[in-house]
């Protein structure tokens, strides 16, 4: 995707959460998503960005354009080298939380997007990949 500003955002603090969701909204708009879908995407970005800040302290989020035969979408990859998630299945159940949140973060992001995948290794970090298609 020939996007500028860069389609990668470093996540180190809660200020970066705001920057990441603004970036997600902007790129979604550029890819033709309507304003409701752009809001949904920005909200999902906010949840995965917060997950990085709360559990890993730092990481990054990449935004990419994806295409299949007849549609265009946005793929968001959130990576950190934090403690990892011991039980990914459990972390995706609404209400499960290791911090003081409501545990809606990751399951919430999953609900908002069309595709959602977590790869996590305890001690090595977590990668969340999520995609939304424009229809």
């Amino acid at each position, binding site marked *: 995707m020939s996007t500028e500003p860069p389609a990668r955002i470093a996540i180190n603090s809660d*200020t970066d959460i705001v920057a990441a*969701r603004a970036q997600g909204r902007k790129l979604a708009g550029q890819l033709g998503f309507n304003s409701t879908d752009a809001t949904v995407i*920005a909200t999902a970005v906010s*949840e995965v960005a917060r997950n990085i800040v709360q559990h890993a302290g730092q990481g990054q989020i990449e935004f990419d354009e994806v295409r299949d035969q007849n549609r265009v979408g946005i793929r968001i990859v959130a990576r950190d080298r934090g403690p990892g998630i011991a039980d990914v299945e459990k972390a995706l159940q609404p209400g499960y939380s290791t911090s003081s*949140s409501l545990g809606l973060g990751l399951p*919430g992001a999953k609900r*908002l997007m069309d595709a959602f995948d977590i790869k996590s290794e305890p001690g090595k970090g977590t990668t969340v990949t999520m995609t939304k298609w424009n229809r």
Partner: protein
Amino acid sequence: MRVPILRQAKYLIASIQSALTDQELLQLRDDLLEQTGRYRARGVVVDVTVLDVMDSFAARTLRSIGHLLNLRGAETVIVGIQPEVAISMVQLGLNLEGVATALDLEEGLAFLDERTDQ
């Protein structure tokens, strides 16, 4: 940036001016809690019209503002949730359970007048 809080008779009006960081949201909660006591406010309006994203943290913080102020004897009403934001919140499974909402500032003040018998 700190959210400005205006005083109008027995009410406080917190008018959010831009996207807020988590820290700024918590600051707003603390400021409202403090000012509600200091000014003996009976009602508080939190205007979120400019917020273009309401994620789980923001919803949780607004809900706790409502519950905290209720314990201090004030009614809280959240106004100005945008249609796109409402759709995202429902998809995400968020609600403001136990905290009143109104369309805009005018409706929010009318609600407070009713609830506080002004």
